């Protein structure tokens, strides 16, 4: 029981992070119908910017955690947003309207390029990161000494993610910007006829997805304490699986999918085999694609023509 609760906490934390990344996949797919394979790298870059910012801020004497964290989040979100925007402009927009596979190939190329670029400028070795937030609560204790703990960092991750997801959902469902975004998903020609700047809306989708991935990058840096240039690949595949599991194109689906993948991974490593935890995710991806390609919350197509 205690062991189960601990895995639940770990799984939720992990799931929150996957969910944040998955939103970027699902939103981009929703609006231009392509998988942005470079999205995992955006998250990786967010993590690197986090490490660098923590070091720089520390050297500048800004060490009070709330301020430091706030600044790191902002810096990281701003820079990854610029990356997201640039990638769309350089690698995808020129290919809009060409054959369907072209942007996918471009995305894979972009992903490889970004990995190598970071490896080149930051080195191939893992980057350690001294803990920023330590401590936590002990929730339960078993007779044999096993303790169930909920760290402050885990609380922060879960709370921050929840706030961001609620805010983001509000943005998409209630604001003019969100309506324009959904309109472009459904019919770009009509959105244009109503005065929506379609290109700018697509850019903005990349920017928002990148900013959320940056938050995930910051959180992961603090959570694991080490990062390297390759973390974007695995996290990317898992978040992509989360998006597909939830129903690609669906915003609540991405959040739900992220949570489920996090939980599955935590429980799989706890009860079966930690070496094969990634295999579990890939197996789910394959199964979903075979048996329910629209995912759990896939869009119902009820439109009349």
């Amino acid at each position, binding site marked *: 029981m205690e062991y189960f609760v601990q895995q639940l906490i770990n799984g939720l934390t992990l799931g929150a992070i996957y969910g944040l990344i998955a939103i970027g996949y699902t939103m981009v797919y929703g609006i231009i119908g392509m998988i942005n394979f470079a999205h995992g790298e955006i998250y990786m870059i967010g993590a690197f910017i986090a490490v660098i910012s923590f070091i720089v801020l520390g050297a500048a004497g800004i060490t009070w955690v709330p301020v430091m964290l706030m600044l790191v989040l902002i810096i990281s979100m701003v820079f990854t947003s610029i990356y997201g925007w640039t990638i769309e402009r350089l690698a995808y927009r020129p290919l809009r309207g060409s054959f369907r596979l072209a942007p996918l190939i471009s995305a894979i190329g972009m992903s490889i390029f970004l990995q190598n670029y970071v490896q080149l400028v930051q080195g191939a070795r893992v980057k350690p990161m001294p803990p920023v937030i330590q401590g936590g609560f002990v929730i339960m204790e078993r007779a044999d000494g096993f303790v169930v703990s909920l760290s402050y960092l885990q609380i922060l991750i879960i709370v921050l993610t929840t706030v961001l997801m609620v805010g983001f959902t509000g943005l998409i469902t209630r604001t*003019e910007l969100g*309506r*324009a975004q*959904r*309109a472009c998903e*459904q*019919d770009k*020609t*009509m*959105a*244009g*006829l*109503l*005065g*929506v*700047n*379609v290109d700018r809306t697509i850019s903005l989708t990349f920017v928002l997805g990148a900013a959320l991935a940056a938050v995930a990058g910051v959180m992961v840096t603090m959570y694991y304490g080490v990062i390297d240039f390759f973390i974007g690949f695995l996290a990317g595949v898992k978040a992509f699986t989360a998006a597909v599991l939830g129903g690609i194109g669906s915003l609540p689906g991405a959040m739900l999918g992220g949570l489920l993948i996090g939980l599955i991974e935590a429980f799989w490593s706890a009860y079966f085999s930690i070496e094969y935890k990634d295999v579990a995710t890939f197996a789910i991806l394959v199964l979903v694609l075979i048996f329910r390609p629209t995912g759990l919350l896939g*869009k119902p197509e*009820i*439109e*009349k023509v």
Partner: protein
Amino acid sequence: MTAVKTGTTANTGSTGEPMLRIEGVHTFYGSIEALKGVDMQVQAGEIVTLIGANGAGKSTLLMTICGNPRAKFGRVVFEGEDITQVPTFEIVRRGIAQSPEGRRIFGRMTVLENLQMGSITAQPGSFDRELERVYTLFPRLKERQAQRGGTLSGGEQQMLAIGRALMSQPRLLLLDEPSLGLAPLIVKQIFKVIEDINREQGMTVFLVEQNAFHALKLAHRGYVMVNGNITLQGTGRELLANEEVRTAYLEGGH
């Protein structure tokens, strides 16, 4: 009544710059030439109709006015400014709204959200007033406002498409076959709405119609398009009386 309209046309037709002027416009889809040098104009305050067979290029002309697709040769001039190369979202910001072919309702958005989309280019603060106006024209939309667009009936979708275009308070309203596939009673209602917004709000309307009889009766002036060319033009009355028009577009009807 027709006589009055013809009189109005004679006046507006002779005074200065038209609201919309199409000059020698050619539009292509790949190598297919859909418009082959179209010339026409719409004066402020008019209802002008364009009739023609399937595939003549009527929808292409309406879309070319909005810059999607773009005219390859020729010019589109709106209120004295050349808008041929202006981006679509900019063109509609200048006061042109279109209810396009196939209605293009956002099926996963509610009726209210569709109408909100229509007001993107409207003056700030005008939303409540315009919404009220659209709901007065189409009370059915008010009853359905929380329903998804995709679940509306065909007639309701057409009302929504027109209402959405009206939400931006355009100076020029482009309507592509608003009566298509609708029951006679609803067709009558929609034509009545077009007449009302033209007379009461002074809105200029450019109307593409299959229902040539109705359209020509309603319009001040009309054009006939064949194969990407304008072949005939005149007042609604003249065209209704024209032998070619009668055999080609009014045969068997009314």
